């Protein structure tokens, strides 16, 4: 095997989304460089060992692990606390999708009560609401005048700062959202997808009854090249 493949093998393991089996590496090389490239699974195994020796010698912070019949790069345990610290910090900073959704509803509908919020989201929102209260993105502004006088939630100064807004009025208006999101192609696509579903169903039903000519109703295959 040519040693130029050392680097190719390293690249393939590095970029692979899942542990990559040696067979896939061999297949890729043969597909691109001709099936006469005399590379085997065993060569790949050997290369990985060589790479690992090299990482060791050079004091690299990572190594190649063999997992579930495939190879994958991983940072060494030596630095686990630093890596762990950063990933924890990152998790803390990130708002979950659910929190974001809740935050958006509070921002646009404020002041609002928890039942109002939950009727919009359709799920219990105690947890996400608490997260937002803790992160000081949402706060309690008082009580509604309605029965039971439930608590009212509003967004905070912190919220405005976080999103770079001067006031709540600076949030994109529904009309503006509509304008940006309006997208005729998309609407058309959606309609077609929905229609094709209906048509397919209709066809099925039909074919069960009387088996006529078929795929006339089938939507045309989409143009692969339409840009954007």
């Amino acid at each position, binding site marked *: 095997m040519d040693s130029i493949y050392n680097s190719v093998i390293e690249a393939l393991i590095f*970029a692979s989304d899942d542990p990559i089996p040696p067979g896939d590496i061999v297949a890729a090389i043969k597909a691109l460089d001709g099936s006469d490239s005399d590379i085997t699974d065993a060569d790949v195994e050997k290369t990985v060992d060589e790479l690992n020796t090299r990482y060791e010698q050079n004091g690299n912070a990572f190594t190649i692990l063999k997992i579930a019949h495939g190879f994958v790069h*991983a940072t*060494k345990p*030596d630095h686990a606390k630093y890596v*762990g610290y950063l990933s*924890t910090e990152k998790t803390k900073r990130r708002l979950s999708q659910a929190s974001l959704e809740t935050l958006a509803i509070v921002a646009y509908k404020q002041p609002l009560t928890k039942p109002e919020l939950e009727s919009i989201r359709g799920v219990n929102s105690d947890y996400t609401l608490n997260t937002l209260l803790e992160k000081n993105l949402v706060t309690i502004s008082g009580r509604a005048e309605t029965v039971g006088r439930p608590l009212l939630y509003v967004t905070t100064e912190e919220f405005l700062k976080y999103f770079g807004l001067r006031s709540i009025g600076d949030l994109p208006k529904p009309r503006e959202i509509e304008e940006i999101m309006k997208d005729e192609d998309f609407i058309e696509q959606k309609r077609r997808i929905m229609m094709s579903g209906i048509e397919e169903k209709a066809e099925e039903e039909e074919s069960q009854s009387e088996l006529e000519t078929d795929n006339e109703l089938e939507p045309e295959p989409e143009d692969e090249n339409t840009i954007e």
Partner: protein
Amino acid sequence: MYKIRLHEFEGPLDLLLFFLKRDELDIYDIPISKITKEFMTYLHLLEQLDLEVAGDFILMAATLMQIKVKMLLPKDIDEKGEEIDPRADLVKALLEYKRYKEMSEEMSFMESNMRKFNYRGNYEEDSKQAPNDFETLLKNITIYDLIKAFKKALMDRPAEPIHHIKKWNVSIDEQMNYLAAKLKDKNSVSFLDLMLEMRDRVRIVVTFIAMLEMVKSGTIGLRESVTLNDFFIYGINNG
């Protein structure tokens, strides 16, 4: 027949630039009649092909015709007493647009370059460890966090509607021993997991008090978990 690729033009300015370029016309001295004619031919063509002509193109057609008329009339004079060329605004717009069109070509080149780089694909196997230095760990845990996790443990328990009168069959000392034993086997245990093992409310309360006692005496430590509603208990003696 005409061979037209409609998408070749990003808009009326792009089309005008195309005409200027193709016929090698001076952008500062645009022959407005000629260009207007070309532009209109193009619009008619679109109509013939039954293509919907975008409003932007129609607007440009109107602008061109307006300029054409103005060219025939006596010119306006600016404050310096010089004649204002009715084409000036159009020229400015064309140059400005051209400038960014050039940059978009530059960016297309950058895009091609970057497509050759590939990022790392798999991070799952990286060795991660929540920070285990006592000082750092407790930095973000407050009494409030403790209470909250405790409350969650109680709340998440499935309701038990039947009430029995029970004897206190558990003591703080017992639970301290229990915790210590737990931590001999493992480096750390999750508070929630610990609580889920217990069905009795009294036992949970007593264990919680036992835990606080042990934190106070320094035999165990607490550290926050990635899921923010839990925390880990770890023994200090066995590291």
